[in-house]
Protein backbone atom coordinates (compact mmCIF):
# COMPACT_ATOMS: atom_id res chain seq x y z
CA UNK A 1 0.00 0.00 0.00
CA UNK A 2 1.44 3.39 -0.81
CA UNK A 3 2.36 5.72 1.98
CA UNK A 4 -0.35 8.24 1.07
CA UNK A 5 -3.18 5.78 1.70
CA UNK A 6 -1.35 4.30 4.68
CA UNK A 7 -0.99 7.73 6.27
CA UNK A 8 -4.68 8.43 5.87
CA UNK A 9 -5.69 5.14 7.45
CA UNK A 10 -3.31 5.51 10.38
CA UNK A 11 -4.31 9.08 11.12
CA UNK A 12 -7.99 8.31 10.72
CA UNK A 13 -7.80 5.50 13.25
CA UNK A 14 -6.04 7.79 15.72
CA UNK A 15 -8.53 10.64 15.26
CA UNK A 16 -11.50 8.29 15.38
CA UNK A 17 -10.70 7.59 19.04
CA UNK A 18 -11.21 11.31 19.72
CA UNK A 19 -14.36 11.07 17.58
CA UNK A 20 -15.74 8.37 19.87
CA UNK A 21 -15.15 10.67 22.83
CA UNK A 22 -16.80 13.63 21.11
CA UNK A 23 -19.71 11.36 20.16
CA UNK A 24 -20.58 11.06 23.87
CA UNK A 25 -20.93 14.78 24.40
CA UNK A 26 -22.20 15.94 21.01
CA UNK A 27 -24.54 13.16 19.99
CA UNK A 28 -25.57 11.63 23.31
CA UNK A 29 -25.56 14.47 25.84
CA UNK A 30 -26.23 17.21 23.23
CA UNK A 31 -23.50 19.11 25.05
CA UNK A 32 -21.27 21.33 22.88
CA UNK A 33 -17.94 20.47 24.48
CA UNK A 34 -15.18 22.68 23.14
CA UNK A 35 -12.81 21.58 25.91
CA UNK A 36 -12.04 18.76 23.46
CA UNK A 37 -9.58 21.10 21.73
CA UNK A 38 -7.71 21.60 24.99
CA UNK A 39 -7.81 18.05 26.26
CA UNK A 40 -6.52 16.68 22.93
CA UNK A 41 -3.38 18.78 23.33
CA UNK A 42 -3.32 17.98 27.05
CA UNK A 43 -3.15 14.28 26.23
CA UNK A 44 -0.26 14.87 23.87
CA UNK A 45 1.64 17.13 26.26
CA UNK A 46 1.24 14.86 29.27
CA UNK A 47 2.36 11.83 27.28
CA UNK A 48 5.29 13.71 25.72
CA UNK A 49 6.64 15.19 28.93
CA UNK A 50 6.41 11.84 30.70
CA UNK A 51 8.25 10.10 27.87
CA UNK A 52 11.05 12.66 28.02
CA UNK A 53 11.24 11.96 31.76
CA UNK A 54 11.83 8.30 30.93
CA UNK A 55 8.41 6.84 31.66
CA UNK A 56 7.09 3.92 29.57
CA UNK A 57 5.20 5.38 26.57
CA UNK A 58 2.20 3.07 27.12
CA UNK A 59 1.94 4.11 30.76
CA UNK A 60 2.26 7.74 29.71
CA UNK A 61 -0.95 7.28 27.70
CA UNK A 62 -2.76 6.13 30.84
CA UNK A 63 -1.75 9.42 32.45
CA UNK A 64 -2.96 11.27 29.35
CA UNK A 65 -6.38 9.70 29.81
CA UNK A 66 -6.38 10.58 33.48
CA UNK A 67 -5.49 14.21 32.70
CA UNK A 68 -8.23 14.34 30.06
CA UNK A 69 -10.72 12.95 32.56
CA UNK A 70 -9.79 15.67 35.05
CA UNK A 71 -10.28 18.35 32.37
CA UNK A 72 -13.69 16.89 31.48
CA UNK A 73 -14.65 16.76 35.14
CA UNK A 74 -13.86 20.46 35.50
CA UNK A 75 -16.04 21.32 32.50
CA UNK A 76 -18.79 19.24 34.08
CA UNK A 77 -18.43 20.87 37.48
CA UNK A 78 -18.58 24.36 35.94
CA UNK A 79 -21.75 23.41 34.11
CA UNK A 80 -23.54 21.34 36.73
CA UNK A 81 -22.46 22.85 40.03
CA UNK A 82 -21.80 26.47 39.07
CA UNK A 83 -24.63 26.52 36.49
CA UNK A 84 -22.48 28.01 33.74
CA UNK A 85 -23.94 27.41 30.29
CA UNK A 86 -22.56 24.25 28.64
CA UNK A 87 -20.69 25.81 25.73
CA UNK A 88 -19.32 28.59 27.90
CA UNK A 89 -17.98 26.27 30.59
CA UNK A 90 -16.23 24.20 27.92
CA UNK A 91 -14.70 27.30 26.31
CA UNK A 92 -13.45 28.43 29.72
CA UNK A 93 -11.76 25.07 30.23
CA UNK A 94 -10.35 25.12 26.69
CA UNK A 95 -8.82 28.56 27.21
CA UNK A 96 -7.47 27.62 30.61
CA UNK A 97 -5.96 24.43 29.24
CA UNK A 98 -3.84 26.43 26.80
CA UNK A 99 -1.79 27.80 29.69
CA UNK A 100 -1.82 24.45 31.46
CA UNK A 101 -0.50 22.72 28.35
CA UNK A 102 2.36 25.21 28.08
CA UNK A 103 3.18 24.57 31.72
CA UNK A 104 3.02 20.81 31.27
CA UNK A 105 5.52 21.04 28.43
CA UNK A 106 7.86 23.07 30.63
CA UNK A 107 7.02 26.39 29.05
CA UNK A 108 7.78 25.25 25.51
CA UNK A 109 5.25 25.49 22.71
CA UNK A 110 6.69 22.41 21.07
CA UNK A 111 8.16 19.30 22.67
CA UNK A 112 9.98 16.92 20.29
CA UNK A 113 10.18 13.17 20.97
CA UNK A 114 12.56 12.20 18.21
CA UNK A 115 15.26 10.91 20.52
CA UNK A 116 12.93 8.91 22.72
CA UNK A 117 11.20 5.56 22.49
CA UNK A 118 7.48 5.78 21.74
CA UNK A 119 4.80 3.13 21.46
CA UNK A 120 5.70 2.91 17.77
CA UNK A 121 9.44 2.33 18.14
CA UNK A 122 10.38 -1.02 16.55
CA UNK A 123 6.72 -1.91 16.11
CA UNK A 124 4.30 -1.95 13.20
CA UNK A 125 2.63 1.47 13.34
CA UNK A 126 -0.64 0.37 11.77
CA UNK A 127 -0.95 -2.63 14.06
CA UNK A 128 -0.44 -0.55 17.22
CA UNK A 129 -2.95 2.07 16.10
CA UNK A 130 -5.41 -0.61 15.06
CA UNK A 131 -5.20 -2.22 18.49
CA UNK A 132 -5.98 1.09 20.21
CA UNK A 133 -8.92 1.83 17.89
CA UNK A 134 -10.25 -1.70 18.30
CA UNK A 135 -9.92 -1.48 22.07
CA UNK A 136 -11.87 1.80 22.11
CA UNK A 137 -14.56 0.39 19.81
CA UNK A 138 -15.01 -2.70 21.96
CA UNK A 139 -15.05 -0.61 25.10
CA UNK A 140 -17.82 1.70 23.87
CA UNK A 141 -19.82 -1.12 22.32
CA UNK A 142 -19.78 -2.84 25.70
CA UNK A 143 -20.33 0.35 27.68
CA UNK A 144 -23.46 1.42 25.81
CA UNK A 145 -25.07 -1.90 26.68
CA UNK A 146 -24.59 -1.44 30.41
CA UNK A 147 -27.08 0.22 32.72
CA UNK A 148 -24.77 3.19 33.13
CA UNK A 149 -24.44 3.48 29.36
CA UNK A 150 -28.21 3.52 28.98
CA UNK A 151 -28.43 6.26 31.63
CA UNK A 152 -26.10 8.38 29.51
CA UNK A 153 -28.19 7.84 26.41
CA UNK A 154 -31.33 8.54 28.42
CA UNK A 155 -30.11 11.89 29.72
CA UNK A 156 -29.62 13.25 26.21
CA UNK A 157 -32.93 11.76 25.15
CA UNK A 158 -35.16 12.85 28.01
CA UNK A 159 -33.42 14.02 31.14
CA UNK A 160 -36.73 14.28 32.94
CA UNK A 161 -37.29 10.55 32.68
CA UNK A 162 -33.86 9.78 34.12
CA UNK A 163 -34.52 12.10 37.06
CA UNK A 164 -37.76 10.22 37.63
CA UNK A 165 -35.69 7.06 38.07
CA UNK A 166 -34.15 8.72 41.12
CA UNK A 167 -30.85 9.45 39.38
CA UNK A 168 -28.70 12.51 40.02
CA UNK A 169 -28.28 13.46 36.37
CA UNK A 170 -25.66 16.09 37.25
CA UNK A 171 -23.14 13.50 38.42
CA UNK A 172 -23.79 11.35 35.37
CA UNK A 173 -23.13 14.35 33.11
CA UNK A 174 -19.83 15.05 34.88
CA UNK A 175 -18.87 11.40 34.50
CA UNK A 176 -19.75 11.47 30.80
CA UNK A 177 -17.59 14.53 30.21
CA UNK A 178 -14.70 12.89 32.04
CA UNK A 179 -15.07 9.71 29.97
CA UNK A 180 -15.33 11.69 26.73
CA UNK A 181 -12.26 13.82 27.41
CA UNK A 182 -10.24 10.82 28.60
CA UNK A 183 -10.58 9.25 25.15
CA UNK A 184 -9.94 12.57 23.40
CA UNK A 185 -6.74 12.91 25.42
CA UNK A 186 -5.79 9.32 24.61
CA UNK A 187 -6.16 10.16 20.93
CA UNK A 188 -4.02 13.27 21.40
CA UNK A 189 -1.37 11.27 23.23
CA UNK A 190 -1.18 8.68 20.45
CA UNK A 191 -1.00 11.37 17.77
CA UNK A 192 1.82 13.13 19.62
CA UNK A 193 3.86 9.93 19.69
CA UNK A 194 2.91 9.15 16.09
CA UNK A 195 4.13 12.48 14.71
CA UNK A 196 7.06 12.60 17.14
CA UNK A 197 6.26 15.84 18.92
CA UNK A 198 3.65 17.59 20.98
CA UNK A 199 2.58 21.07 19.97
CA UNK A 200 0.50 23.52 21.96
CA UNK A 201 -1.71 24.22 18.95
CA UNK A 202 -2.23 20.66 17.75
CA UNK A 203 -5.66 20.37 19.38
CA UNK A 204 -7.19 23.37 17.62
CA UNK A 205 -10.20 22.20 15.65
CA UNK A 206 -10.45 18.77 17.32
CA UNK A 207 -14.07 19.36 18.21
CA UNK A 208 -14.99 20.47 14.69
CA UNK A 209 -13.07 17.54 13.19
CA UNK A 210 -14.88 15.14 15.49
CA UNK A 211 -18.23 16.72 14.62
CA UNK A 212 -17.50 16.42 10.91
CA UNK A 213 -16.57 12.75 11.27
CA UNK A 214 -19.62 11.93 13.35
CA UNK A 215 -21.99 13.76 11.04
CA UNK A 216 -20.48 12.12 7.97
CA UNK A 217 -20.57 8.73 9.67
CA UNK A 218 -24.18 9.07 10.70
CA UNK A 219 -25.37 10.56 7.41
CA UNK A 220 -23.53 8.46 4.88
CA UNK A 221 -22.54 5.21 6.53
CA UNK A 222 -25.55 4.63 8.76
CA UNK A 223 -27.75 4.41 5.67
CA UNK A 224 -25.73 1.43 4.49
CA UNK A 225 -26.79 -0.40 7.62
CA UNK A 226 -24.08 -0.03 10.29
CA UNK A 227 -25.43 1.02 13.63
CA UNK A 228 -22.47 0.67 15.97
CA UNK A 229 -21.60 4.26 16.89
CA UNK A 230 -17.86 3.61 17.23
CA UNK A 231 -17.63 1.95 13.82
CA UNK A 232 -19.58 4.88 12.37
CA UNK A 233 -17.03 7.22 13.95
CA UNK A 234 -14.16 5.29 12.38
CA UNK A 235 -15.65 5.32 8.89
CA UNK A 236 -16.73 8.94 9.24
CA UNK A 237 -13.20 9.94 10.21
CA UNK A 238 -11.80 7.91 7.34
CA UNK A 239 -13.97 9.72 4.81
CA UNK A 240 -13.27 13.08 6.39
CA UNK A 241 -9.49 12.58 6.47
CA UNK A 242 -9.51 11.29 2.93
CA UNK A 243 -11.34 14.33 1.65
CA UNK A 244 -8.91 16.58 3.54
CA UNK A 245 -5.90 14.71 2.18
CA UNK A 246 -7.29 14.81 -1.35
CA UNK A 247 -7.96 18.53 -1.16
CA UNK A 248 -4.34 19.02 -0.09
CA UNK A 249 -3.22 16.87 -3.01
CA UNK A 250 -5.33 18.96 -5.30
CA UNK A 251 -3.11 21.88 -4.40
CA UNK A 252 -4.88 23.59 -1.53
CA UNK A 253 -2.68 25.25 1.05
CA UNK A 254 -2.36 23.38 4.40
CA UNK A 255 -3.20 26.65 6.14
CA UNK A 256 -6.63 26.48 4.49
CA UNK A 257 -7.38 23.15 6.20
CA UNK A 258 -9.34 24.54 9.14
CA UNK A 259 -11.50 26.60 6.81
CA UNK A 260 -12.20 23.53 4.69
CA UNK A 261 -13.16 21.61 7.83
CA UNK A 262 -15.61 24.31 8.82
CA UNK A 263 -17.17 24.38 5.39
CA UNK A 264 -17.54 20.60 5.37
CA UNK A 265 -19.24 20.69 8.77
CA UNK A 266 -21.60 23.46 7.66
CA UNK A 267 -22.58 21.51 4.55
CA UNK A 268 -23.24 18.28 6.42
CA UNK A 269 -25.06 19.98 9.29
CA UNK A 270 -27.32 21.73 6.80
CA UNK A 271 -27.97 18.48 4.97
CA UNK A 272 -28.65 16.84 8.32
CA UNK A 273 -31.28 19.44 9.23
CA UNK A 274 -32.81 19.58 5.78
CA UNK A 275 -32.84 23.34 6.30
CA UNK A 276 -31.40 26.43 4.69
CA UNK A 277 -30.60 26.46 1.02
CA UNK A 278 -31.14 22.72 0.82
CA UNK A 279 -34.66 22.92 2.20
CA UNK A 280 -36.10 24.13 -1.06
CA UNK A 281 -34.43 21.34 -2.93
CA UNK A 282 -35.45 18.64 -0.44
CA UNK A 283 -39.08 19.71 -0.26
CA UNK A 284 -39.30 20.15 -4.03
CA UNK A 285 -37.95 16.68 -4.54
CA UNK A 286 -40.36 15.27 -1.97
CA UNK A 287 -43.25 17.07 -3.64
CA UNK A 288 -42.27 15.75 -7.01
CA UNK A 289 -42.17 12.21 -5.69
CA UNK A 290 -45.47 12.69 -3.91
CA UNK A 291 -47.29 14.03 -6.94
CA UNK A 292 -45.94 11.29 -9.15
CA UNK A 293 -47.20 8.76 -6.63
CA UNK A 294 -50.61 10.43 -6.69
CA UNK A 295 -50.68 10.21 -10.45
CA UNK A 296 -49.70 6.57 -10.26
CA UNK A 297 -52.50 5.76 -7.80
CA UNK A 298 -54.92 7.89 -9.81
CA UNK A 299 -54.15 6.12 -13.04
CA UNK A 300 -54.51 2.76 -11.34
CA UNK A 301 -57.96 3.67 -10.08
CA UNK A 302 -59.05 5.23 -13.32
Amino acid at each position, binding site marked *: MNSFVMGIIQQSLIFSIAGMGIYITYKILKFADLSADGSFTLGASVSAILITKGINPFISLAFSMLAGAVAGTITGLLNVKLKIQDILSSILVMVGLYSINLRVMGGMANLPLFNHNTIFTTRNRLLIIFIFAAFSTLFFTWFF*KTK*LGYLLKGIGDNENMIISLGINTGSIKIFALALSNAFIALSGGILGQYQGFSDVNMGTGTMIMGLASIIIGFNLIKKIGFSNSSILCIFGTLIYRTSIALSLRAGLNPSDLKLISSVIVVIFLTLDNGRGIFKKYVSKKAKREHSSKLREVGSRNA
Partner: protein
Amino acid sequence: MLKLKNISKTFNKGSINEQELFNNFSLDIEKGDFISLIGSNGAGKSTLLNLISGKLKSDEGRILLDGVDITEKDEFERCRNISRIFQDPAMGTNPSMTIYENLAMAKNKGQKFGLRFLIDKKDEVFFKDSLKVLGLNLEDKLHTPVSQLSGGQRQSLALIMATIVNPDLLLLDEHTAALDPKTSEIVMEITDRVVREKGLTTIMVTHNIEYAIKYGNRLIMLHLGKKVLDISGDIKKNLNKEELLSLFKSVSDKSLFA
Protein backbone atom coordinates in the same frame (compact mmCIF):
# COMPACT_ATOMS: atom_id res chain seq x y z
CA MET B 1 -48.73 8.70 54.63
CA LEU B 2 -48.06 12.11 53.05
CA LYS B 3 -48.20 15.11 55.33
CA LEU B 4 -47.82 18.72 54.26
CA LYS B 5 -47.41 20.92 57.30
CA ASN B 6 -47.86 24.71 57.15
CA ILE B 7 -46.47 25.08 53.64
CA SER B 8 -45.86 28.60 52.37
CA LYS B 9 -44.75 29.49 48.89
CA THR B 10 -44.37 32.91 47.32
CA PHE B 11 -43.26 33.48 43.75
CA ASN B 12 -41.00 36.34 42.62
CA LYS B 13 -40.26 37.34 46.17
CA GLY B 14 -39.22 40.95 46.58
CA SER B 15 -40.32 42.09 43.13
CA ILE B 16 -43.45 43.94 42.11
CA ASN B 17 -44.76 40.68 40.70
CA GLU B 18 -44.62 39.05 44.11
CA GLN B 19 -47.40 36.52 44.39
CA GLU B 20 -48.19 34.54 47.45
CA LEU B 21 -49.76 31.23 46.50
CA PHE B 22 -49.67 29.05 49.60
CA ASN B 23 -49.82 30.41 53.12
CA ASN B 24 -49.86 27.93 55.97
CA PHE B 25 -51.25 25.20 53.74
CA SER B 26 -51.62 21.77 55.31
CA LEU B 27 -52.74 18.51 53.82
CA ASP B 28 -52.93 14.98 55.17
CA ILE B 29 -53.13 12.02 52.84
CA GLU B 30 -53.87 8.48 53.98
CA LYS B 31 -52.24 5.39 52.56
CA GLY B 32 -54.24 4.11 49.60
CA ASP B 33 -56.05 7.38 49.01
CA PHE B 34 -56.86 8.18 45.38
CA ILE B 35 -57.37 11.92 45.35
CA SER B 36 -58.67 13.95 42.46
CA LEU B 37 -57.48 17.51 42.65
CA ILE B 38 -59.37 20.21 40.78
CA GLY B 39 -59.32 23.97 40.60
CA SER B 40 -59.19 26.81 38.11
CA ASN B 41 -55.99 28.00 36.48
CA GLY B 42 -53.61 29.49 39.01
CA ALA B 43 -55.25 27.63 41.89
CA GLY B 44 -51.94 25.99 42.76
CA LYS B 45 -52.56 22.42 41.61
CA SER B 46 -49.39 22.05 39.61
CA THR B 47 -47.41 24.03 42.17
CA LEU B 48 -48.64 21.64 44.83
CA LEU B 49 -47.42 18.65 42.81
CA ASN B 50 -44.12 20.44 42.15
CA LEU B 51 -43.69 21.06 45.87
CA ILE B 52 -44.37 17.41 46.66
CA SER B 53 -42.11 16.07 43.91
CA GLY B 54 -39.32 18.50 44.78
CA LYS B 55 -39.27 20.41 41.50
CA LEU B 56 -40.03 23.46 43.65
CA LYS B 57 -38.94 24.01 47.23
CA SER B 58 -41.34 25.51 49.74
CA ASP B 59 -40.40 28.71 51.57
CA GLU B 60 -41.66 27.37 54.86
CA GLY B 61 -43.24 24.25 56.27
CA ARG B 62 -42.37 20.56 56.23
CA ILE B 63 -43.26 17.68 53.95
CA LEU B 64 -43.29 14.17 55.38
CA LEU B 65 -43.57 11.01 53.33
CA ASP B 66 -44.14 7.83 55.34
CA GLY B 67 -42.92 9.64 58.43
CA VAL B 68 -39.65 10.72 56.75
CA ASP B 69 -39.00 14.43 56.41
CA ILE B 70 -38.28 15.00 52.70
CA THR B 71 -38.43 18.82 52.77
CA GLU B 72 -34.74 19.26 52.09
CA LYS B 73 -34.39 16.41 49.60
CA ASP B 74 -33.74 17.10 45.92
CA GLU B 75 -36.14 16.09 43.20
CA PHE B 76 -34.14 13.06 42.08
CA GLU B 77 -33.93 11.75 45.65
CA ARG B 78 -37.68 12.04 46.15
CA CYS B 79 -38.24 10.33 42.81
CA ARG B 80 -37.02 7.10 44.39
CA ASN B 81 -40.34 6.94 46.26
CA ILE B 82 -42.54 9.13 44.11
CA SER B 83 -43.55 8.53 40.49
CA ARG B 84 -45.06 11.22 38.35
CA ILE B 85 -46.79 11.30 34.99
CA PHE B 86 -46.98 14.58 33.12
CA GLN B 87 -49.46 16.11 30.73
CA ASP B 88 -46.98 15.87 27.87
CA PRO B 89 -46.75 12.22 26.75
CA ALA B 90 -43.13 12.81 25.71
CA MET B 91 -42.03 13.51 29.29
CA GLY B 92 -42.28 10.04 30.78
CA THR B 93 -40.45 7.91 28.24
CA ASN B 94 -37.20 7.86 26.28
CA PRO B 95 -38.22 8.29 22.63
CA SER B 96 -35.16 6.83 20.91
CA MET B 97 -35.16 3.68 23.04
CA THR B 98 -37.42 0.71 22.45
CA ILE B 99 -40.34 -0.21 24.68
CA TYR B 100 -38.22 -3.06 26.06
CA GLU B 101 -35.34 -0.72 26.95
CA ASN B 102 -37.70 1.80 28.52
CA LEU B 103 -39.31 -0.86 30.68
CA ALA B 104 -35.91 -2.26 31.64
CA MET B 105 -34.82 1.21 32.77
CA ALA B 106 -38.01 1.67 34.78
CA LYS B 107 -37.68 -1.76 36.35
CA ASN B 108 -34.19 -0.88 37.59
CA LYS B 109 -35.51 2.16 39.47
CA GLY B 110 -34.17 2.31 43.01
CA GLN B 111 -31.32 -0.06 42.18
CA LYS B 112 -27.78 0.67 41.09
CA PHE B 113 -27.21 1.70 37.48
CA GLY B 114 -23.77 0.14 37.24
CA LEU B 115 -21.80 -1.76 34.64
CA ARG B 116 -24.08 -4.77 34.31
CA PHE B 117 -25.98 -5.21 31.06
CA LEU B 118 -29.39 -3.54 31.09
CA ILE B 119 -31.16 -5.91 28.76
CA ASP B 120 -32.03 -9.21 30.38
CA LYS B 121 -33.88 -11.70 28.18
CA LYS B 122 -35.53 -13.16 31.28
CA ASP B 123 -37.61 -10.00 31.70
CA GLU B 124 -39.51 -10.53 28.47
CA VAL B 125 -42.37 -12.53 29.98
CA PHE B 126 -42.77 -10.07 32.83
CA PHE B 127 -42.80 -7.08 30.46
CA LYS B 128 -45.34 -8.74 28.17
CA ASP B 129 -47.59 -9.47 31.11
CA SER B 130 -47.28 -5.89 32.36
CA LEU B 131 -48.21 -4.51 28.94
CA LYS B 132 -51.13 -6.91 28.41
CA VAL B 133 -53.03 -5.03 31.13
CA LEU B 134 -53.25 -2.09 28.71
CA GLY B 135 -54.97 -4.04 25.97
CA LEU B 136 -53.17 -1.94 23.34
CA ASN B 137 -51.12 -4.80 21.88
CA LEU B 138 -47.92 -3.05 22.95
CA GLU B 139 -46.63 -6.46 24.06
CA ASP B 140 -46.13 -7.31 20.37
CA LYS B 141 -44.09 -4.15 19.80
CA LEU B 142 -41.45 -4.65 22.48
CA HIS B 143 -38.61 -3.76 20.13
CA THR B 144 -40.26 -0.70 18.56
CA PRO B 145 -38.73 2.69 19.42
CA VAL B 146 -41.11 4.67 21.62
CA SER B 147 -40.91 7.63 19.21
CA GLN B 148 -43.10 5.61 16.83
CA LEU B 149 -45.94 5.27 19.33
CA SER B 150 -48.97 7.54 19.50
CA GLY B 151 -49.51 9.92 22.42
CA GLY B 152 -52.03 7.63 24.06
CA GLN B 153 -49.77 4.60 23.71
CA ARG B 154 -46.85 6.55 25.14
CA GLN B 155 -48.89 7.80 28.06
CA SER B 156 -50.08 4.27 28.80
CA LEU B 157 -46.49 3.04 28.62
CA ALA B 158 -45.46 5.88 30.93
CA LEU B 159 -48.10 4.69 33.38
CA ILE B 160 -46.78 1.13 33.32
CA MET B 161 -43.23 2.45 33.72
CA ALA B 162 -44.18 4.70 36.62
CA THR B 163 -45.83 1.83 38.46
CA ILE B 164 -43.64 -1.16 37.48
CA VAL B 165 -41.78 -0.66 40.74
CA ASN B 166 -44.50 0.20 43.24
CA PRO B 167 -44.03 3.86 44.20
CA ASP B 168 -45.11 5.10 47.63
CA LEU B 169 -46.91 7.93 45.92
CA LEU B 170 -48.14 8.41 42.36
CA LEU B 171 -48.63 11.93 41.00
CA LEU B 172 -50.75 12.37 37.87
CA ASP B 173 -50.46 15.85 36.43
CA GLU B 174 -53.37 16.21 34.00
CA HIS B 175 -52.02 13.10 32.38
CA THR B 176 -54.95 12.68 29.99
CA ALA B 177 -55.31 16.35 29.01
CA ALA B 178 -53.23 16.11 25.83
CA LEU B 179 -55.11 13.07 24.51
CA ASP B 180 -58.24 12.91 22.39
CA PRO B 181 -61.48 12.15 24.30
CA LYS B 182 -61.58 8.45 23.45
CA THR B 183 -57.92 7.77 24.21
CA SER B 184 -58.26 9.88 27.31
CA GLU B 185 -61.10 7.59 28.52
CA ILE B 186 -59.00 4.50 27.85
CA VAL B 187 -55.93 5.84 29.64
CA MET B 188 -58.09 6.95 32.56
CA GLU B 189 -59.68 3.53 32.89
CA ILE B 190 -56.28 1.85 32.76
CA THR B 191 -55.03 4.29 35.38
CA ASP B 192 -57.92 3.46 37.68
CA ARG B 193 -57.36 -0.26 37.26
CA VAL B 194 -53.60 -0.09 37.90
CA VAL B 195 -54.01 2.21 40.90
CA ARG B 196 -56.65 -0.02 42.48
CA GLU B 197 -54.87 -3.30 41.72
CA LYS B 198 -51.66 -2.08 43.29
CA GLY B 199 -53.36 -0.04 46.01
CA LEU B 200 -51.26 3.01 45.15
CA THR B 201 -51.60 6.29 47.00
CA THR B 202 -52.37 8.71 44.20
CA ILE B 203 -52.95 12.41 43.60
CA MET B 204 -54.50 13.20 40.24
CA VAL B 205 -54.77 16.75 38.95
CA THR B 206 -57.52 17.05 36.38
CA HIS B 207 -59.62 19.66 34.61
CA ASN B 208 -62.20 17.05 33.76
CA ILE B 209 -64.99 17.36 36.34
CA GLU B 210 -66.47 14.01 35.31
CA TYR B 211 -63.20 12.19 35.95
CA ALA B 212 -62.82 13.99 39.25
CA ILE B 213 -66.20 12.66 40.37
CA LYS B 214 -65.98 9.22 38.83
CA TYR B 215 -62.50 8.24 39.97
CA GLY B 216 -60.87 8.22 43.36
CA ASN B 217 -62.17 8.19 46.90
CA ARG B 218 -61.47 11.79 47.79
CA LEU B 219 -61.90 15.08 45.98
CA ILE B 220 -60.10 18.31 46.77
CA MET B 221 -60.80 21.65 45.15
CA LEU B 222 -58.13 24.30 45.38
CA HIS B 223 -58.61 27.98 44.88
CA LEU B 224 -55.80 30.55 45.10
CA GLY B 225 -53.77 28.22 47.25
CA LYS B 226 -56.58 27.31 49.63
CA LYS B 227 -58.64 24.17 50.00
CA VAL B 228 -62.22 25.19 49.27
CA LEU B 229 -63.58 21.66 49.13
CA ASP B 230 -62.36 18.38 50.59
CA ILE B 231 -64.82 15.53 50.49
CA SER B 232 -64.55 11.79 50.57
CA GLY B 233 -66.53 8.61 51.09
CA ASP B 234 -70.27 8.59 50.39
CA ILE B 235 -70.55 12.35 49.98
CA LYS B 236 -68.10 12.19 47.10
CA LYS B 237 -69.77 9.14 45.62
CA ASN B 238 -73.13 10.89 45.52
CA LEU B 239 -71.77 14.11 44.12
CA ASN B 240 -73.23 15.13 40.80
CA LYS B 241 -71.66 17.13 38.06
CA GLU B 242 -74.03 20.11 38.23
CA GLU B 243 -73.50 20.60 41.94
CA LEU B 244 -69.76 20.53 41.59
CA LEU B 245 -69.79 22.80 38.58
CA SER B 246 -71.94 25.41 40.29
CA LEU B 247 -69.68 25.26 43.31
CA PHE B 248 -66.68 25.63 41.04
CA LYS B 249 -68.26 28.65 39.39
CA SER B 250 -69.34 30.37 42.58
CA VAL B 251 -65.84 30.06 43.98
CA SER B 252 -64.16 31.52 40.95
CA ASP B 253 -66.82 34.24 40.55
CA LYS B 254 -66.32 35.31 44.15
CA SER B 255 -62.67 35.80 43.60
CA LEU B 256 -63.35 37.73 40.43
CA PHE B 257 -65.24 40.38 42.36
CA ALA B 258 -63.31 40.17 45.59
